[in-house]
């Protein structure tokens, strides 16, 4: 059997002192890889499972240290720094040479034990509420390795939460529920057709997994993104309320208004900024959604 030193996870970032990823003070571990391709993705750098190079032109001072360091001719351009990603082998040589931090590698292998050591650093602050939040990407896209981290946390008496899109192999759930104190379960849309159009996958598996998790005794917080003009409608809210009402250990429903920051993150990967201001819901729409759902007796967080 593999030990926690040998089991590896592909991590994009470990963020301490997170306040919005579950109760209390959390350390959020972002894992790489996601089966969904949401049009509004807030963390596009976590979509692909493989490592990627991030480039932030705002921090580039044009020193060309990367050009010298790279053996594959990725970096060039005469006036502006250009990145030819097709040539990149994600070796990290340019990142080490870049003085400003304009270049970053997204995705690094860490053992479960190494990750735990990072999470452990803030134990004094967690109290009884805070702890680890596993996020991403879709944490369970890394399968049993993710569960190993959750298990280790529970063995060492640390609270755990998982942010999931719900789209993963349901066979993982039996163990996942055992080692997860709270699921932050995304329901992007309750309309199957729209779900497929905007995320690339059907929501059937997500809802099946949700039902299974509930049967297995999971404590669940539903997280629902509000995208203006896409899912800001009463029928959706009614179905959210119904879904929430069906869960036996519901923590509450959290509404996440769309924001456009994910769009600027896409530029780090070489894509155009796909943030869409017209998708940001108005304050009234947010209140309306809260009211609609709360009217069905569901707790809004």
């Amino acid at each position: 059997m593999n030990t926690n030193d040998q089991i590896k996870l592909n991590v994009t970032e470990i963020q301490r002192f997170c306040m919005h990823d579950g109760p209390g003070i959390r350390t959020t571990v972002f894992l790489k890889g996601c089966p969904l391709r949401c049009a509004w993705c807030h963390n596009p750098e976590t979509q692909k499972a493989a490592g990627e190079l991030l480039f932030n032109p705002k921090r580039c001072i044009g020193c060309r240290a990367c050009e010298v360091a790279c053996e594959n001719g990725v970096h060039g351009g005469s006036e502006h720094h250009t990145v030819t990603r097709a040539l990149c082998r994600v070796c990290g040589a340019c990142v080490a040479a870049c003085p400003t931090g304009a270049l970053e590698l997204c995705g690094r292998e860490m053992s479960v034990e190494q990750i735990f050591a990072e999470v452990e650093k803030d134990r004094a602050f967690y109290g009884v509420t805070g702890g680890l939040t596993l996020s991403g990407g879709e944490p369970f896209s890394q399968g049993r390795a993710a569960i190993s981290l959750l298990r280790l946390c529970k063995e060492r008496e640390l609270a755990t939460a998982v942010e999931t899109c719900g789209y993963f192999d349901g066979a993982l759930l039996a163990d996942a529920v055992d080692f997860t104190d709270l699921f932050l379960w995304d329901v992007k849309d309750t309309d199957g057709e729209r779900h497929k159009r905007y995320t690339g996958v059907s929501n059937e598996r997500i809802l099946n997994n949700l039902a299974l998790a509930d049967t297995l005794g999971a404590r669940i917080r539903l997280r629902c993104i509000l995208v203006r003009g896409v899912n800001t409608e009463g029928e959706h809210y009614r179905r959210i309320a119904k879904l929430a009402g069906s869960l036996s250990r519901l923590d509450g429903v959290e509404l996440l208004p769309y924001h456009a920051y994910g769009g600027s993150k896409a530029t780090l990967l070489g894509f155009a900024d796909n943030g869409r201001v017209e998708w940001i819901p108005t304050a009234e729409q947010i209140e309306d959604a809260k009211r609609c759902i709360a009217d069905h007796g569901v707790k809004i967080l």
Partner: protein
Amino acid sequence: MTFYAPNNYNRPIRLSKSTRQFAHDSLDHKYGLDTRKTLGVCLDGLANFEQMTPLEQYDTAIERIAREAPIRICKDEKISGAATLGLAIGHYVPATYREKPIYSSVSHLTVDFETVVRHGILHIRKNAERSLERYRGTEREAFLQSCLHCLDAFDVWHRRYLDALREMPAYESNYKNLQRVPQKPAANFYEAVQSIWFTFAFLRLCGNWPGIGRIDYLLGDYLKKDLANGTLTLDEAREILAHFFIKGCEWVSGGNYGSGDAQHYQNILLCGVDENGEEVTNEVTFLVLDILEELGISDFPTSVRLNRNTDEKLLRRVAEVMRYGGGILAVYNEDLVIEALVRDGYDLREARKFANDGCWEVQIPGKTFFTYFPFDSLQTFQKKTLQDYQGDVAFDNFKALYRQYIKDLEVELLQIFQNIQKKFITAGAPTKDWKWLPQTPCTVVSLFEQGCIEKGLSYFEGGPVYNVTSPHIGGLADVANSLYAIQKLVYEEKKLTLNELLTILKNNWEDNEPLRQYALHHYAYYGNDNDEVDLLVTRILNDFSNTCNSFNGKCGYRFPAGVSTFGRQLEWAPYRGATPYGKRAEEVLAANCSPTPGTDTSGATAIICSYCKAELVRLSCGAALDLKLLPTSVLGEDGLQALMGLMRGFVELGGFFMQPDVADPDILRQAQKDPENYQTLSIRVSGWNARFVTLNKVWQDMVIEQNEH
């Protein structure tokens, strides 16, 4: 009538309309502007003034102040007494001779309000008379005569208030209380509040800045008794206490030209154990928190003593008030503070009594002479160790560089010590009875410091039970970061030689932007929970505190080590060169024991972890951590849990003192442009709070920079 709050939080309303109006007027600097109208008394008419001894001059000034200072009775005030002379704001005894203030006044001490409130001024007078008999005919007689003169002056001023109030039926209870206190022991809560305030106001009137100390400890028993007797309700008690805090918050300028415009600045302390180890927290504690929450009063700045057993309910209440921002509440970890004091030689029962002075340094209240000597350890490093970047500096390895720096630090401290030693007549020869050379008169504070009357010696001349002068190291994070960058760039990665680096620094990083960026971004500096650099901070502090301790016993003072800059990082900036970790010359760098602005990128918990790694228990004078939080990170129940978690971690990891503030740099920038609409927006500066709009541009910019995330 609203009091500023971030996030559009509504402050709760518990106080009466008239009390809220009083607060509003006071926070709108109505009374503060009044204080500046009369600067002080003028002694020019005294023909024999120049022939008088300093003590006689001082006594004359105090007597005239008591007789002539304007009496102020604010509309609807429930307690009376006010320090109404403007020179007191400038740290002077408010009396002039030939247009110059005659003496400076005393600050950074917390006086013995416990004796005042429990035994009364008459008790102090009796002690002074007894002591005078004992020392009659000795050189100490003059000081004790001065004590009686100053007590007489206090009586004069007191009678003037009684005379004024007697004619004002609306102030009947003020008059009734002042007929008994502060002369006699307070008999109930209302009298106790009046007793402390009136004595504070007199001390302040005479120019001094006395800290209040542990107000819930001082008042708790009185309130308990009144509540049990049914003579007072909690709501009534809250009103009375609110007036104490409103009177304590007097903004004096209305303009912006410095480090804030509070008249009093004196810290107040809540909670913690008493001398027997029993928790003090009582109804008064929660009333104070109610008042701060409702009125957003940020001067008096208030601190809370936390420990491992701090009750969840209290911690939650503290977090609730803290998240309104304004720097209103700061916290001590008393477990560590008490241990530090015991290690420093204090008896455990004494150590448990600790309070802050007017600022955040700790001392045994009412028993301690205190002063501190700040110095910039970054300049020591740049100008001495690295020879001002001028010469050919060679160190074989990092260890040699570090050793030289500590040697330079020791020289700096020795100079501080030798200057202090000059205050003594018998300096150098070990003795138990150090004798001070005559110092500036300071009789008024001496009345309220145990030991002075008993020994017949003033506050400045060895009177108090404990005499403390604390060297304060500044620029700590900047030196550690500088050393760390050199260790990496020069000795480990060998990117360049030390002399090459120094040439670059001498040229202020000119034409070396890639290397500067590399130094800034490739290493995790102090405040990011990186053991390598945090260990450097620990080593510097250990070497520093060892040197300070080596002076103990060599003159009449103890030399506990402390860490501070207060606002001096501004004054020091023009004298500082470029730093090896990528900052340019003359930048405003780290405050107190906090990270250098812009170098802490791992969040609040990492900052606390870095800070707590130092052996803070060796620094019995204190080391302050400033923690800046965004309003969005303290929203809702999650935000409360976050603040509670931060405080819990701070205690568990062994912090000393932490001053969190909740401020949004965007809002601060808005306030800079539009001061009229942000008159009551207060922020934590260092050991004190200030209305943001009254800071000058340089201070404002520094505060904004510190709040950037």
